């Protein structure tokens, strides 16, 4: 038999990255800043978004795409706080969102009246790291009920992110969590990271978070 070898050398993510580029150019054309929110399950993505939508959702014209594995629960929780379109992607068991899902979800959003777009990814610190969704930046939520070594265990996600939001800081007195060691571990993985500390439940640190969002949205308006 004659075996023939065909060199391919094609990146597996090439097609996803192409679609992500389409998402990016559509968002850029409308002056929309998109953040990809990633974390372990239960770190507080939906709660932080609920508080954010309630406080500055209208002002900053925030839209949300949520990625739920099997339910619409997150979308329903967020819909209470906003009349802006919340577009839910049910991933049917998949561990991440991909650029095609986001590109499709954009059709359901009024981009002309959107300044900030949150893409709430599936709770998972491994898989979503590989999938570019066309976002401007990835924001990792890191709750104080996790381990300080999480950035060392899941370096890919922390390497690809730009910001870390430390969540549930109201629980710090009750858990053996050294927040400074945790942040030091994250910086070891990615020295470029910036940090915010919040408790969405107690409204701690939310002013800084909203300030960051206003700054991000305004920066885009100036350049748009």
């Amino acid at each position, binding site marked *: *038999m*004659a*075996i*023939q*070898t*065909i*060199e*391919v*050398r*094609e*990146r*597996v*993510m090439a*097609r*996803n990255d192409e679609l992500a580029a389409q998402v990016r150019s559509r968002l850029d054309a409308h002056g929309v800043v998109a953040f990809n929110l990633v974390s372990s399950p239960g770190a507080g993505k939906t709660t932080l978004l609920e508080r954010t939508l309630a406080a500055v959702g209208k002002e900053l014209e925030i839209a949300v795409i949520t990625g739920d594995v099997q339910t619409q629960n997150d979308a329903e929780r967020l819909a209470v706080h906003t009349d802006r379109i919340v577009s839910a992607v049910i991933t049917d068991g*998949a*561990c*991440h969102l*991909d650029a095609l899902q986001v590109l499709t979800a954009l059709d359901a959003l009024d981009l002309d009246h959107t300044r900030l777009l949150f893409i709430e990814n599936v709770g998972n610190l*491994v*898989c979503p*790291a*590989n999938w570019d969704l066309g976002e401007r930046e990835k924001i990792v939520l890191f709750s104080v009920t996790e381990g300080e070594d999480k950035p060392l265990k899941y*370096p*890919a996600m922390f*390497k690809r992110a730009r910001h870390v939001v430390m969540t549930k800081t109201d629980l710090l007195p009750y858990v053996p969590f050294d927040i400074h060691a945790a942040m030091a571990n994250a910086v070891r993985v990615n020295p470029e990271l910036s940090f915010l500390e919040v408790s969405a439940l107690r409204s701690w640190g939310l002013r800084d978070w909203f300030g960051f969002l206003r700054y991000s949205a305004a920066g885009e308006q100036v350049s748009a």
Partner: protein
Amino acid sequence: MHEMSIALEIARIAEERLGESASQLVTVAVDVGDDAGVESASLEFCLDAVFSTPPFRGAKGVVVRAPGDVLQLAYLEVDDGNPDD
């Protein structure tokens, strides 16, 4: 567990490259970086499963570890069924 979606994407690329000779595919080699967030054994398992369904007829997945976060379909081997020259 995104190895299955990666395997399916690899199958899509392979089918695009091979067209009608997809059924002659015998080996699929994938470069996987240490920081790519992909588990080799799991990916090989998924490749074997995906490439045992039409238009393929049982190609073997081979993972080649590499440094960095590379994740690419390296090469394909097809057997045209003709005897060697």
